[in-house]
């Protein structure tokens, strides 16, 4: 190999295949009988789950149930021990890193940054996968709209490192939205947020689903899941304990069982939205 070839290979930018539009209800990501061990511990045990366009799918369950691991498997971060993960109809390993980035965006649990980039620079990073494609023209609007949606526009010129935890989380979400993929995988996007911004984030999820995207969101707040998700998958001990519309899956029996704590489910007197509360002693 000549030096030129070595450099071309190292620098090599293989051709990418931008994703095609999907029909409503199309399966964008799917886990089939997925089992996975981290170290000695089995974290996922025969999990099957399909993620469809036009739908907000909430992953709920107690700590250590395997929610984040399932999300990581669906985002092709982890290779599964048995079973199969399909993304956009192809086994996850069959996509190049770049092609995956055009198909799914991932919000990690914690937003970190090694150098003091500004907020608008961070959000702009979400456009990186589209460099050199026709969608590059959308860069400016995608960034502006993502920042407006997450209400971070007014600290666009500030350093990311100087933001509060909740602000960082919104900037990270903004970066994910700017990536404009049809599959969004969000790991606890509401964890660091105040009440108003929790509602805002799930409203954004709804809007993306309505626009034809598929959204998977890991949440701990069952009330949020009940109010905003089209479908809820309850994980417990690495298995799917329930999968369906909130009213069918979020039942007192199932929840009391998986959380090992009595749970009551009430309907809001005015709206009928499910209210899910742990049973507490009167004081």
């Amino acid at each position: 190999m000549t030096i030129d070839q070595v450099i071309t290979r190292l620098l090599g930018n293989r051709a990418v295949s931008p994703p095609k539009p999907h029909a409503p209800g199309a399966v964008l990501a799917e886990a089939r009988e997925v089992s996975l061990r981290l170290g000695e511990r089995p974290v996922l045990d025969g999990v099957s789950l399909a993620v469809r366009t036009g739908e907000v799918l909430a992953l709920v369950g107690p700590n250590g149930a395997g929610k984040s691991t399932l999300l990581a498997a669906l985002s092709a971060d982890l290779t599964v021990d048995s079973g199969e993960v399909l993304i956009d109809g192809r086994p996850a390993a069959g996509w190049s890193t770049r092609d995956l980035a055009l198909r799914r965006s991932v919000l990690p649990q914690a937003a970190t940054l090694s150098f003091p980039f500004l907020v608008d620079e961070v959000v702009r990073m979400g456009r990186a996968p589209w460099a050199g494609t026709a969608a590059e023209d959308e860069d400016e609007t995608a960034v502006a709209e993502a920042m407006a949606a997450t209400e971070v526009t007014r600290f666009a010129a500030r350093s990311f490192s100087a933001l509060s935890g909740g602000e960082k989380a919104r900037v990270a979400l903004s970066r994910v939205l700017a990536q404009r993929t049809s599959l969004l995988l969000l790991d606890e996007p509401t964890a660091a947020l105040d009440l108003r911004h929790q509602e805002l984030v799930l409203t954004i999820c709804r809007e993306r689903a309505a626009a034809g995207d598929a959204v998977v969101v890991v949440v701990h707040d069952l009330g949020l899941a009940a109010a905003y998700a089209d479908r809820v998958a309850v994980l417990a001990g690495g298995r799917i304990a329930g999968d369906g519309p909130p009213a069918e899956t979020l039942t007192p029996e199932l929840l009391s069982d998986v959380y090992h704590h009595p749970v009551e489910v009430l309907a809001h007197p005015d709206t009928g939205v499910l209210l899910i509360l742990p049973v507490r002693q009167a004081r």
Partner: protein
Amino acid sequence: MSTTPAPARRAGPEDERPHPLPGSGGRPAGADHPGAADSTDHTDSTGTPPSGHRTRVARATALTIGLLAALVATALAAASIGAYQIPFADVIASVSHRLGAGGRELDRVAESVLWNVRLPRVVLALLVGASLGCAGALMQGVFGNPLAEPGVIGVSAGAAVGAVAAIAFGLTVFGNWTVAVCAFLTGLATVLLVYALSRSGGRTEVVTLILTGVAVNAFAGALIGLSIFFADNAQLTEITFWQLGSLAQATWPKVLAVLPAAVIGLVAAPWYARKLDLLALGEKPARHLGVDVERLRISLVLVVALLTAAAVAVAGIITFVGLLVPHLLRMIAGPGHRFLVPGSALAGALVLLAADLAARTIAAPAELPLGVLTALIGSPFFFWLLRRTRRRQGGWA
């Protein structure tokens, strides 16, 4: 692929943050909530965002122009000043004469001093400085850590082991390139070693990195000591020169010997800039954005080894340029690597050219070793940086 992301929410009254009433006297909302600190509120769904990015780009552009101007001026000064003074006008005349752009030939002595002594040294300083500055910026980007630097973490010393061994054992396997090739090989091995030793769980802890550097520097020092033990007197002088770091023996063949490695490294480096930006988010987010992190790291380690070896092969161990330069640039123009990587090459060249000029004029007719000079200035800066990092993180995390 959706092209209709969430439209901005209508801001109804319930959407507003609580504001202190004007004149209500209370603490401003910003005092306890950083999110409410700036008063230019309500720009969320309208108009252009305030872009600090554009400010940084403007600064970077101004800085690039300034650096280029300073580089030309310093190069001119470095070619002119010395034991045998050559006026600026003569330098320009002679250079343009040889470039076939008018000018005139100088007298024999001046012509010889300029072309056989000064200019090779100027060019070598530019190459070495650019390589070190650029290698520093790349390495900090790869490690996601502003304290990474070829000298500090021992890569320079590792490259020097190969070079010193090549001198001490009189190796000539690769002819004129032997020293450079040996420096590259041991430099590469050292980068890989440091990388493997100092990373755990996809992160590089400051403490681990610095301690790995201490260990690697000590080990390299021992190997260099061993080579010295086997060297004869002539080789000993050559090796000592090396360890102190110097450009005093600059010749055109030496320039040619480092040129390929330095040029390949410097040309390849900016290509990785955008990916390095993404790497700042962490390995997984970078991968989610389409960066093949493993390949990026290996490529960059190669480039860093190439640049460091090029510099070390001709100039010996010159520390802190790669640490100081990217850091200062980041403070002025932000951490974006599209400017930082080429900018660090420019600023590194300037710093080394100026340092070399100082090294040979401050104590004239004697000459200070260049590596000693950069370490004298660089070490206090390093202390300051360590303390600042420590204060910010509240400990050695």
